């Protein structure tokens, strides 16, 4: 296990991300609501650069059995990563794929030490 400092804390705004390369692996670091997340930049679908895609919200639908009505809600703005190749959706806070419950982006521990954002491989 080796720890790599990838950038200074002040260089990453909340809601933003950077993609870096460590030991031949492209890894993206996200900052969201003060938390850091690091994922492999490799979509589980066809290997697209998922971490370079747009960050958006997503639609969720809810069926009310009592009323028979279906409501459509736009939720989780800025929390959903969309692979730019085909639109596979990932939850930035967990790495989970929204359409395939068994798929999760490989993740790496992130820590901040002396103002530096560190990733452990």
């Amino acid at each position, binding site marked *: 296990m080796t720890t790599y400092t990838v950038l200074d804390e002040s260089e990453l705004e909340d809601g933003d991300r950077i993609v870096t390369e460590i030991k031949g692996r492209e890894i993206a670091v996200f900052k969201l609501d003060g938390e850091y997340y690091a994922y492999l930049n490799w979509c589980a679908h066809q290997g697209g650069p998922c971490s370079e895609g747009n960050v958006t919200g997503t639609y969720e*639908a809810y*069926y009310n059995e009592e009323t028979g009505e*279906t409501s*459509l809600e736009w939720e989780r703005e800025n929390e959903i990563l969309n692979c730019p190749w*085909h*639109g596979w959706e990932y939850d930035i806070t967990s790495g989970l794929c*929204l*359409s395939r419950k068994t798929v999760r982006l490989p993740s790496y521990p992130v820590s901040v030490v002396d103002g530096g954002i560190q990733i452990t491989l």
Partner: protein
Amino acid sequence: MAVQNKRQGPLSAHTVVDTDLHLRIPLDDLAKYMDEPHRSIVENPTFTPVDRTGWNRYMGKKITKNELPDADAVQEHVCGEFQVDYPLINAFPVLASVPEDDRAVHMMRAYNDYMLDNYLDKYDHFLGLASIATQKPDEAAEEIDRISTEKQIVGVYLLTSTGTHPPLGDPKYDPIYKAVQDNNLHVAFHGSAGAPFAKDFPLQNSHFNRFLPTHILSHPWEMMLTMTSLLVEGVPVKFQDINFTFLEAGISWVPYMMFRWNKDYSMRRTEAPLLEKSPEEYIRDQFYFASQPVGEPNDPEDLKRIIDIMGTNRLMLATDYPHWDFDHPDALDKHIRQFYDEEERAKILSGNAIEAFDLDI
């Protein structure tokens, strides 16, 4: 359990359910079950009658036209010759082609009463699918409430999404599915290569000058349209107690749809937002498929490969008798005997139908 006194043969030791058996009720006879003014219209159809239309199925005299004109004929040909214990009968109406929605509703009730009086009431081991007109969903729901009191009615019969507008997953039809679920029934879809298909696929119908290509394409296209509409609208999510059976399109199209749906769903999940698991899982959990027409690959093992992909717990025997393209039960069973053990064979011959329609047999 197997019905007594069935003819001896490969199926005599098994309980057999035939999930797709058709009536052709003469309009004059049907009219007797209707009130005026609908009775006179049905007796003297001058606009879009609901009988078969268009293509000649029999190529002159090359194929003999069969009928099941009464309950005894079902008993003799289907239960006797085909060794079927429980025929699951549908009246085979084409109610989606009826332009007057109130007439469609009256015909729906007449078809169901006719089938009960003349078939189901004659033999206790006959089962039925209630015909449903989709033009007025609330009245269809009332009919489902009424007809579900008949214990031999185990499901409803919906003409697939050709001629039925909008397609059958549309929330417009939720009252129908709610009534089905509330009455502990299930749903069977059936296509048509006749008038409804010509209505929605006019180019396909007019650009081929033989029935062969029309027939090849009609049933799978209609089933693909129906399955797609159900999934994109989340019908199996909204009505989780309903099983959905697809009749008369065979099975080879099913793996294609499973995998194509999976692929597109993951790329465009937000456009089918009610789904909570992969489309393939809904197909494997709530959808069943009748065998007829059994595909005829040059290498019979290819059929086994298709069944293996789909799973032996999704497949149900169907003959489609007495239609021109019916399958004798052995068309499927000869493959099942060759490739599967007796336990799996029993599921295909009756066990899956018992599950799909919650049959008390």
